[in-house]
C-alpha cells in the first residue's frame, strides 16, 4: 500500500466523521424544535420557529420563548456537558466504563445542594446552590481518582464509585431525615429525581456559566487523551503533564456536573451511554469522541425530556428516572461485555 492511498484512507475516515457530525447536529436541532413544540399546547416546528423569531400570536410567543425555551436550552446544555464529561473521564482513565454517575459525582453534587437548601443557606435560585454542588462534585471525583491511583483497574474504579455514590446517597438521606419541615423533604425528594420541568431563564443563568466553563476546560485537554492511549508514562514522555491533566479534568467535570445538578437534580447515565453510541461511528480515538459525545448527550436528554411529556401517566414522570431506567440496563450490558477484564481484576 502506498503512502498516497493511506492519505486517501484517512481522508475517507475524516469525511465519514464529518457526515456523522452533520447528522448529529440535524438531530439535535430537530429534537430542540420538537421539545419547543410539545406540551399542553402542541405547536408545529414551523409555528415554533415563527414564534421564536417574533411571529405567531402573543400566546404562542410566550409559550415558546418563556416557558419552553429555558427547558430546551437546559436539556441541550446539560445533556451535552454530561456526554462530554463521560467522554473526558473515559479518555482520562482509558476505560469505557468511566462516567460521572458511576463515580458518584451527580449524587455528591446533589448532596451539596440539598445540604445548602435544608440549612436554609440559599433558596433554589441563588448561586450558593451551584457552588455547593460543584464543590461536592469536585470532592467526589478527586477522592475517586486519588483512591484509583495512576493505573487503576476497572474493578477499583467501580467499587470506589459505588462507595462514593452510596455515601453521598446516605448523607442526602440523613439531611432529609433530620429535616423538620415535611414540605422541604418532599420538595428535595422530587428535585433529586431530576427534572427539566418549569425551569426559567434564571435557572439557565445559574447553570450555564459553569457548564460552559467546564466544557471549555474539558475540550482544551482533548488531544492529551489521545496521547494517554499509550499509558500515563508514555504520555508524559510525549510532553503531557499528567498530574495537571487529571486536575483539569476533575475541575471540568465538577463544574459541568455540579452546575447541571444544581438546577435539575440528578440525571444519570447519559455520560456513560453517549460515548458508547459514538464509538462504532467515529472510532475509538478519545479526542475525536468528545464533540460527538456532547451532541449525543444533548440529543439523548432532549429525547428523554420529550418522552416524559408524551408518555401518558397519572403524574409527571421525571426525566432523571427515565434516563436511569434506560441507562442501568445498558450499564449491565457493558459489564457483561467487559466481564473478562472485570473477572481478572485488571483492566
Amino acid at each position, binding site marked *: 500500500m502506498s503512502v498516497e492511498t493511506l492519505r486517501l484512507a484517512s481522508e475517507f475516515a475524516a469525511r465519514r466523521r464529518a457526515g456523522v457530525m452533520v447528522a448529529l447536529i440535524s438531530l439535535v436541532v430537530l429534537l430542540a424544535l420538537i421539545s419547543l413544540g410539545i406540551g399542553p399546547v402542541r405547536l408545529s416546528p414551523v409555528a415554533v420557529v415563527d414564534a421564536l423569531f417574533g411571529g405567531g400570536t402573543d400566546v404562542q410567543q410566550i409559550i415558546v420563548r418563556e416557558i419552553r425555551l429555558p427547558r430546551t436550552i437546559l436539556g441541550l446544555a446539560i445533556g451535552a456537558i454530561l456526554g462530554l464529561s463521560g467522554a473526558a473521564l473515559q479518555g482520562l482513565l482509558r476505560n469505557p466504563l468511566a462516567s460521572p454517575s458511576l463515580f458518584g459525582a451527580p449524587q455528591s453534587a446533589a448532596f451539596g445542594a440539598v445540604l445548602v437548601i435544608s440549612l436554609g443557606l440559599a433558596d433554589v435560585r441563588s448561586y450558593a446552590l451551584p457552588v455547593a454542588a460543584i464543590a461536592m462534585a469536585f470532592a467526589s471525583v478527586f477522592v475517586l481518582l486519588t483512591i484509583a491511583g495512576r493505573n487503576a483497574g476497572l474493578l477499583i474504579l467501580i467499587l470506589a464509585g459505588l462507595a462514593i455514590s452510596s455515601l453521598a446517597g446516605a448523607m442526602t438521606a440523613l439531611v432529609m431525615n433530620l429535616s423538620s419541615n415535611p414540605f422541604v423533604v418532599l420538595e428535595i425528594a422530587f428535585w433529586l429525581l431530576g427534572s427539566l420541568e418549569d425551569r426559567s431563564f434564571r435557572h439557565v443563568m445559574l447553570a450555564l456559566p459553569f457548564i460552559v466553563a467546564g466544557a471549555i476546560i474539558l475540550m482544551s485537554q482533548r488531544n492529551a487523551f489521545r496521547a494517554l492511549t499509550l*499509558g500515563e508514562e*508514555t504520555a508524559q514522555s510525549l510532553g503531557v503533564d499528567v498530574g495537571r491533566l487529571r486536575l483539569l479534568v476533575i475541575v471540568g467535570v465538577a463544574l459541568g456536573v455540579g452546575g447541571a445538578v444544581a438546577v435539575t437534580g440528578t440525571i444519570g447515565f447519559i455520560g456513560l451511554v453517549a460515548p458508547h453510541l459514538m464509538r462504532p461511528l467515529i472510532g475509538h480515538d478519545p*479526542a475525536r469522541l468528545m464533540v460527538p459525545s456532547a451532541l449525543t448527550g444533548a440529543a439523548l436528554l432532549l429525547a428523554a425530556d420529550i418522552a416524559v411529556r408524551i408518555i401518558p401517566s397519572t403524574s409527571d414522570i421525571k426525566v432523571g428516572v427515565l434516563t436511569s431506567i434506560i441507562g442501568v440496563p445498558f450499564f449491565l450490558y457493558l459489564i457483561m461485555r467487559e466481564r473478562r477484564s472485570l473477572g481478572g481484576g485488571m483492566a
Partner: protein
Amino acid sequence: MSGLLTAQNLGVTFSGRAVLRDISLSLSSGHLVALVGPNGAGKTTLLRALAGLLPSQGEIYVGGDALSLLSLRERAKRFAYLPQGHVVHWPLPALDIVALGRYPHGATDPARLTPKDAEAVKRAMQATDVVEFSKRRVTELSGGECSRVALARVLAVEAPVILADEPTASLDPRYQIDVMQNLRKAADAGTLVIVVTHDLGLAARFADTVLVLSEGRLAAQGAPAEALSEKIMANVFRISAYRAEHQREAVIVPWAGI
C-alpha cells in the same frame, strides 16, 4: 564529562529505599548502549530517571542542558521513550499511533499533520516496514507487528536520544533481530540509543557500549567484551557463558549457573 547524555551521581529513592546509587555515565550520540543486569537491578528505573519521568537526585545533562531546567515539552523532543509491553488502551489505527510520535512537535492531531510531520511519520513507518498496517487497528496486529508499530512511533519523534525498555521481550528470534537492527540503524544515523535487555547475546552483538547494573549501582561499563567479562558474568549474573566470535562479531551465550 562530555557527551550527549551525562549523569553525575544519579540516585533514585523509592519510599526510603535507594533503588539507584552513584550512577555516573557519559554517552555519546551515534552509539547503541545496552543496559543489562539481573531482575530488580534498577534498569527500568535508570531509563525512566534519564528521561526525567521520575524524580532523582544528582545531575543529568542532555545536549549540554540540565534536564531539570527543561520543560516537559522540551524533554519530550529530546527523549523518545519506548516502554515495556507496548500498551495501547484504545484500538486506534497503526497510523494514528505512529503519528503520536509527533506530539512533542505540536502535531497533536494525526488528521492534521504538517508536511514535515507527515514526512517523519512516513520515514518511521518505512523504516520498520509497517506502512501496510497503517489502517489496521493495533489491537488486531500480532505481537511482532505491534512491536514494530511501537518502534515506528518512537522513531517518528526523531529525538536525539531513544530509550527502549526491553523492546525484544516476547518476540520471536526473527523479530528480535529486526528490532535490534532498526535500533542499530538509528544509532548509525547519529541517535544515542539506550536499550534495556536481558538478552546478553543481542547486547554483545549489537551494542557499542554495555552498562551492567547490579543492585542499583553500575558494576561495569565499556565495550561488550570488557563489560561482559567472565568476572562480571560470575559476580553479577552468577552464570558462566560460552564465548566465541562469528563473522567477526562477539557471541556470548549464557551457559550455566554458578
